[in-house]
């Protein structure tokens, strides 16, 4: 009961913070539009790229254009949701720890990790979210996808845990900053590996495939779950793998974070 009320309290706090951010959004409408439009444009450009390629070839190693669009669209969703809620982890890597601003989170009556992430609701992510849903909408009629209660449930499970793969990678790399003061560039390097997940991993060589599957497992955020929905496969591997990887990364991340908080030394003065 006590645990439940704690979760309830977290949700309540989240709502309050999001409300604050939305007020800010109303204040700076043009800012929001530029940010979301930027995300939209960056995705549109990549789609033109893909359509130029597919105008010349019928399929890419057996994958049709619509199937690629489905995987691509699926890849955007967990990325966008993570972007929406945990964007402040980047600032841990860039400035918050280096400038000693982390002190304030330690004084809050909630866990420091929660206090950091709840502070920023990154509305730019709506651009990615929008493109992701549009791509799924466009591609679903063209791929053999069975819409059943089980598939919808698996879809939600896959989406939920894929998001935590993103968060986990960011959390682990951001925590490094507790010891090195600055880890933004390390977050960036590992985060960029997510780009590999947009395409079927079958196009990569063995080494790359191994890295994106087992080392920095972004393949489980898009290709494995998405391909399960359109070409079938072993759900225990394709979606179960997503769950396992997410739990693993988050556990390591939270462990490192807690160790880091203990090791944290504020910046002088």
């Amino acid at each position, binding site marked *: 009961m006590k645990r439940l009320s704690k979760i309830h309290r977290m949700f309540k706090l989240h709502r309050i913070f999001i409300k604050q951010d939305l007020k800010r959004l109303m204040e*700076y409408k043009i800012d929001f539009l*530029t*940010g979301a439009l*930027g995300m939209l444009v960056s995705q549109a450009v990549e789609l033109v790229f893909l359509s130029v390629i597919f105008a010349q*070839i019928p399929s890419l190693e057996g994958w049709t254009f619509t199937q690629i669009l489905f995987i691509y669209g699926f890849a955007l969703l967990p990325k966008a949701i993570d972007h929406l809620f945990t964007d402040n982890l980047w600032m841990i890597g860039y400035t918050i720890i280096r400038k000693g601003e982390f002190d304030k989170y330690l004084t809050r009556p909630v866990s420091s990790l929660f206090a950091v992430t709840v502070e920023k609701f990154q509305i730019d992510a709506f651009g990615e979210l929008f493109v992701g849903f549009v791509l799924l909408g466009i591609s679903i009629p063209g791929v053999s996808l069975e819409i059943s209660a089980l598939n919808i449930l698996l879809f939600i499970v896959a989406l939920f845990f894929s998001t935590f793969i993103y968060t986990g990678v960011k959390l682990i790399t951001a925590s490094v900053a507790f010891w090195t003061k600055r880890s933004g560039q390390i977050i960036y390097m590992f985060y*960029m590996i997510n780009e590999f997940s947009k*395409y079927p991993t079958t*196009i990569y060589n063995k080494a790359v495939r191994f890295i994106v599957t087992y080392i920095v497992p972004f393949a489980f955020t898009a290709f494995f779950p998405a391909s399960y929905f359109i070409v079938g496969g072993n759900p225990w591997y394709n979606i179960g793998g997503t769950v396992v990887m997410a739990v693993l990364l988050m556990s390591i991340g939270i462990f490192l974070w807690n160790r880091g908080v203990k090791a944290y030394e504020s910046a002088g003065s």
Partner: protein
Amino acid sequence: MRKILKIYKPFTHAGVLLAAQYRVNFVFFILGDVLRCFINYFLWHAVFKSGGAETFMGFSEIDMVSYIFISFLTTTLAYSDGAYAVGEEIRDGSIAMRMIKPIRFDLAFLFQELGERTMSLLLAFLPLVAGVEIFRFFATGRFAFNLWFFLLYFVSLVLAYLINFYFNVCFGYTAFVLKNLWGANFMKDCIVGFLSGGIIPLAFMPGWLGTALNLLPFASLTYTPVMIYIGKLDGIAILLSFGLQIFWLAFFFVLQQVIWNASVKRMSVQGG
């Protein structure tokens, strides 16, 4: 000219120091960005395998791989942070300090950024060029490096940087209107990246669109130097593209000057 060098040398020096300070970060960022080249490499490899043909719209697989890495190198080296730097100064009002100093605002930025670029030259140039040449050697069985094309490429790259610098300074003035610098810059980088051939060679664009994009200033930023490097342009085409690059450089230089003169007269800065 010597006087100019003497006045602005300290800015270059400061730029070098700044870049040296952040060299480790720079390496990580470059590594993160090079990943994207490798994704494209695998993607194109699959495209050539699935297409079954020797060439894709006139590009062989070796051309395409060289294009991916050299265009990344060109974009990195010709990159200018001018828009962000100018925008930040306008936003926090420190641009006022630039006005009371007896130095040119654009040159001070330019010389500092040239200093910062030395680190990219040292850390990205050699490995990427060497990588591409080694790849070409193993793929074709002979040494494909052409010193003549390489030198022309370098001239074109310098022009590309200067055009980009003045274009970005002009863009930075949008900070008078837009407050989300990050968003505006992100959008600009995406659009410019596409129009300049940084994502796909402009040769892949259908007829009239391809011609139009070739004439726009953005082609001068990435596409032109890269096409020179991989030997896709002949003598006359190279001369013409240099002419076009010089034209766009002059265009943005004058535009920047006009906007600057106009805004100095009517500028009001918050606070004091």
